[in-house]
């Protein structure tokens, strides 16, 4: 099993989960915006902010060798668009890439990826804002799986990747609005992350303004999405920005945080919470009884939290600062700046054909 991490330091690091050693470091020319590992663990793909997806091949998993510096080659590209999500299909046949220009591209993952992935299977078009996250639902009876995506248009969409057709769309932003009795300021309902629970047809959705997560249920027969449950976090201002499910053990891990917090003494923050109680192979979503664990109930307990968060408890004000920072970051990165016509003309003023004659 491999673990891959990448950051603004333009490095992609591959770690073995056996030894927790870094077995490979790959340099990227630009900052990385998405990564994915092929199901067989032989290839790592990463995408940059200019829309290129790179691929690098890995040696056998038990790499005891020290960091090998491999050079990545281009696999495919979304022309001049920030790539926001990268996922392999459960059967390994396709690689799915999503971008800031509302597009999702499904490409055949070839036998020789280093020669590039040139055969596009389909485009999944329908989002009306940037696509922020991708995930696959796959159960033992449905191995090919269905693709789900979340976007800046506050929807979660279900797709058939073979044809690119939109099977269903769920307006999660509107549903969050329904829940809140007080009017929320502005439209802060971007879907920030989605995560599928293994062997389950549940999808956990993190939404910008929701303190907790929304659980959607996917009906594989009718190929539709519906709202199953909203799990709220009470007692603290926690809006998750990143979700991950454990392979076994029915846990959903949630993280919020950020670095470069301007309005706080802390330079960075992370806060971790866990929801447990997911039952596998349970088609009836009402059987699911997810519950937010208290800090002491989290596997690893206080010791783990101390390592991950820096301290066991986090100041309320810091959490608010973090929530603000995340909102700004996402908006700045992904929402296109709309200039008025006057502003656009003003910005063009240095162009020769726009200069007014003396």
């Amino acid at each position, binding site marked *: 099993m491999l673990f891959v991490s990448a950051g603004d330091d333009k490095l992609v690091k591959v770690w073995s989960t056996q030894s927790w050693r870094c077995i490979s470091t790959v340099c990227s020319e630009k900052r990385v915006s998405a990564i994915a590992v092929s199901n067989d663990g032989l290839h790592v793909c990463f995408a940059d902010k200019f829309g290129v997806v790179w691929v690098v091949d890995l040696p056998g998993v038990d790499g005891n060798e020290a960091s090998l510096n491999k050079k990545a080659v281009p696999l495919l590209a979304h022309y001049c668009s920030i790539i926001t999500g990268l996922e392999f299909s459960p059967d390994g046949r396709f690689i799915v890439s999503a971008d800031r220009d509302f597009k999702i591209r499904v490409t055949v993952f070839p*036998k020789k990826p280093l020669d590039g992935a040139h*055969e596009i299977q389909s*485009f999944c*078009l329908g989002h009306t804002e940037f696509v922020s996250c991708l995930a696959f639902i796959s159960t033992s009876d449905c191995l090919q799986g269905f693709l789900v995506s979340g976007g800046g248009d506050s929807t979660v969409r279900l797709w058939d990747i073979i044809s*690119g057709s939109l099977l269903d769309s769920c307006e999660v932003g509107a549903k969050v609005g329904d829940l809140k009795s007080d009017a929320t300021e502005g439209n802060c309902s971007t879907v920030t992350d989605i995560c599928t629970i293994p062997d389950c047809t549940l999808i956990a959705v993190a939404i910008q303004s929701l303190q907790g997560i929304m659980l959607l249920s996917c009906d594989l027969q009718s190929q539709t999405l519906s709202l199953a449950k909203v799990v709220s976090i009470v007692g603290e201002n926690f809006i998750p920005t990143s979700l991950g499910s454990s392979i076994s053990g029915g846990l959903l891990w949630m993280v919020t945080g950020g670095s470069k917090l301007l309005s706080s003494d802390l330079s960075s923050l992370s806060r971790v919470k866990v929801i447990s109680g997911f039952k596998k192979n349970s088609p009836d979503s009402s059987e699911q009884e997810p519950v937010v664990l208290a800090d002491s109930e989290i596997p690893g307990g206080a010791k783990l939290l101390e390592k991950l968060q820096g301290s066991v408890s986090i100041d309320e004000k810091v959490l608010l600062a973090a929530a603000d920072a995340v909102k700004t970051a996402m908006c700045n990165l992904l929402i296109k700046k709309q200039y008025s016509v006057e502003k656009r003309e003003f910005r063009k003023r240095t162009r020769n054909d726009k200069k007014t004659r003396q």
Partner: protein
Amino acid sequence: MMESKPNQTINKTTGLPRKRFYRARAHSNPLSDSHFPVPLSPSHVDYSLHYPQLVPSADQTDSSKKIQFADIGCGFGGLLISLSTLFPETLMIGMELRDKVTEYVKERILGLRVANPGRYQNISVVRTNSMKYIPNYFEKGQLTKMFFLFPDPHFKEKNHRRRVISPHLLDEYAYVLEVGGIIYTITDVEELGDWMKSCLENHPMFEALSEEELEDDHVVKLLSTATEEGQKVARNEGQTFQAVYRQIVPAS
């Protein structure tokens, strides 16, 4: 002395637009974000807007007629106009990034339709960035022909990524072309000609047309003669470099 002459931009005799009122810079930045509407998906393309006589709005969903020819960077529309009468049953569209040039082509087509009833109903133009939005306009395997006539060479190496023919973009062009669909490229810049040929040659989903096939294809002759750019090159007795390839299923 201010004279108000409506439609001064259109020649009263021919009904065609006068080019000098549609002057535009030769270059447009393909990297800048769009300020023009983009269809959400190919099924959102308004056929009745582009081809009002051939696709009345009533039965747009029923219509089996789809655009089959795309002229990428159509400039002032010369190729489309030539192709329109050669293939009167085929729907064609020109894609152009420059605002004024697109307006010129629109007026030109409207003028021709009025002056020649029943003809030129199968061509249209849209202002868009084809390097970003081709999948929004065309379904998989929809096009039978794609044209790239005298594209911007983007000479500096750092600007090569702005070239409309590139290994990555060819993936998208292969996607919208049907199996056997043909891509036509021509330029008067030798280095660009070599570049385009090399990109196509190295792409697993394209194969070159043979000499005989090129001879038999009536469209090939139009590449250097039908457009204003091509005519200018001929006037200056310049050389042209073409690469014509067919879309194929990649060998597994």
